[in-house]
């Protein structure tokens, strides 16, 4: 598996049992969540197991992390998704086991949340289940999205999501991309903006994520933060 081949950079460090992955629409939250789960399960030095992934996206009807469930389950990751016909719905349904899974999180739980403040609102109904000492809430930042292309936009998004979720961010993931048009320059520009937002807000910059084929073209010395190589799982039918 390419995602587990020797990373020429430092690997992402996951510190808390509960990791809430949030961001604007199209920032790449689901792809990052799926890849992070896969990376951790394959990383033998990572011991906070078992690893589960929870799809909390109630805003998007398609291209959600639940679509990669079968693949993740094979690797030993536990997917937590709506069941039956609700699997296909975009209704604000919170399964009873969701609250339980958050409160009793053993090992590592990755929560993939829907986009923008609209998607993050689901967190407010669960806010009392999150213990501030056991969770990180991480913003996935894509500088190529219109509403998070500059500092002002990022700060606005952070504020809106924090208000809607009733939770505070603890960190940032730089995931700047332009789908198939992504190049090294785009990834590097994204890191720059993420560093600026990190400096302005005091939020920790956890890691940068980018497709393996782009990372292969970047010099080791050019990135000084941990790196999560991506192998896309949430593809369009013709890809």
């Amino acid at each position, binding site marked *: 598996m390419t995602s587990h081949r020797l990373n020429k950079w430092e690997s992402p460090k996951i510190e808390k049992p509960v990791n809430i992955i949030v961001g604007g629409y199209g920032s790449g939250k689901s792809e990052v969540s799926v890849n992070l789960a896969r990376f951790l399960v394959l990383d033998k030095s990572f011991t906070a197991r078992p690893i589960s992934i929870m799809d909390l996206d109630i805003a998007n009807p*398609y291209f959600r992390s639940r679509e990669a469930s079968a693949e993740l389950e094979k690797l030993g990751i536990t997917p937590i998704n709506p069941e039956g016909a609700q699997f296909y719905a975009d209704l604000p349904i919170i399964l009873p086991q969701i609250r339980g899974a958050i409160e009793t999180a053993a090992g590592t739980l990755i929560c993939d949340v829907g986009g923008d403040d609209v998607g993050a609102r689901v967190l407010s109904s669960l806010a009392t289940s999150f213990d501030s000492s056991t969770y990180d809430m991480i913003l996935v930042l894509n500088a190529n999205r*219109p509403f998070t*292309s500059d500092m002002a936009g990022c700060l606005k998004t952070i504020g809106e999501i924090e208000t809607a979720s009733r939770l505070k961010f603890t960190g940032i993931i730089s995931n700047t991309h332009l789908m198939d048009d992504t190049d090294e320059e785009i990834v590097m520009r994204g890191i720059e903006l993420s560093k600026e937002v990190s400096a302005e807000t005091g939020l920790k910059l956890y890691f940068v994520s980018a497709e393996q084929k782009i990372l292969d073209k970047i010099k080791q010395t050019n990135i000084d933060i941990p790196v999560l190589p991506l192998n896309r799982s949430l593809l369009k039918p013709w890809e």
Partner: protein
Amino acid sequence: MAKVLMKGNEAIAEAAIKAGANNYFCYPITPQTEVAEYLAKRMPEVGGVFLQGESELAVANMIFGAAATGKRVFTTSSSPGISLMQEAISYMAGAELPCVIVNIMRGGPGLGGILPAQSDYFQSVKGGGHGDYRLLVLAPSTVQEAVDLMMLSFHLADKYSNPVMMIGDGMIGQMMEPVEFPDVYVEPEELPEKKWAITGAKGRKPKVVKSLFLDPYQLEDSSWHLHEKYELMKKNEVRFERYKVSDKNEMMLVSYGTMARICQTAIDALEDEGISIGLFRPISLFPCPQDAIYAEAIKKNIKDVLVIEMSTGQLVEDVERAVVGKKKVSLFGRTGGVVPSPEEVINKIREMVTKKSKKTKTKKKA
């Protein structure tokens, strides 16, 4: 302008603003609600109107009223919502009002589901509402094309004083792709003055915009006048694209929207196996590129015409009409929100090509 990453729904919204359409009326429905979410943020920035009505019925009639002022107006919805709008759409066609309606299609009939479908072809192309009228219907297959066709839709609506509909399956609305917008939108050609626009009758005679004609001869005149417009559209607005069409093709696929992209992936894979297939992709659904489909289908090398759509068979009827029995037209359809994979399409084509070659071999032996 540099490329940005946008969800189809957002890109459609931004394209409308680029084309100077600052009047948007809507009612939310999956999978197109992001258009409304985006415009709720954007319209105040450009001094436009964003209004969420109490239902699709209300919205469509708001469009009717707003269009009568001569301003560029639009709405977006998804299948069941579009059904609710049909009465006002027929009225607007009758009253010759330009407007743009976007349908990001989901599975039907009835409330159906929320996953991608193409089962509103008949509704869009063959009427939907009552009376002798047509909509100009465009179908993009990429987010960039959705942007381009959205801007063009406003132009064509004004050119013909007629509602224009852009339809895409749910994926067009939901998927993210890089897109580019023009810095300044330029009309492709000069547009007629909107002399009919209701702008306040101070100092001039009142104008009347209506679709009611009690005198049957007047109504007949009006209907034939509309008909002439539709004939002009058939002459001037046919749009399509061909992919890997050559005299080596054994078969021609006909498919539109994102389904055509799945066909392209299948065609590329089959090419590696030495099976040559071409794709005909209608971009304008009304007018249907009938003559061009006929011209491709009758070519000697084409043994089969296969229509692939996300429905139980709607576009296929227009393809049959175009081919007029000269070649066999078959259908491969999935529906209800089930999107066929390139593998399914490949298998279907392989099965048809193998059957054909077996038949030919048997004939030769005899």
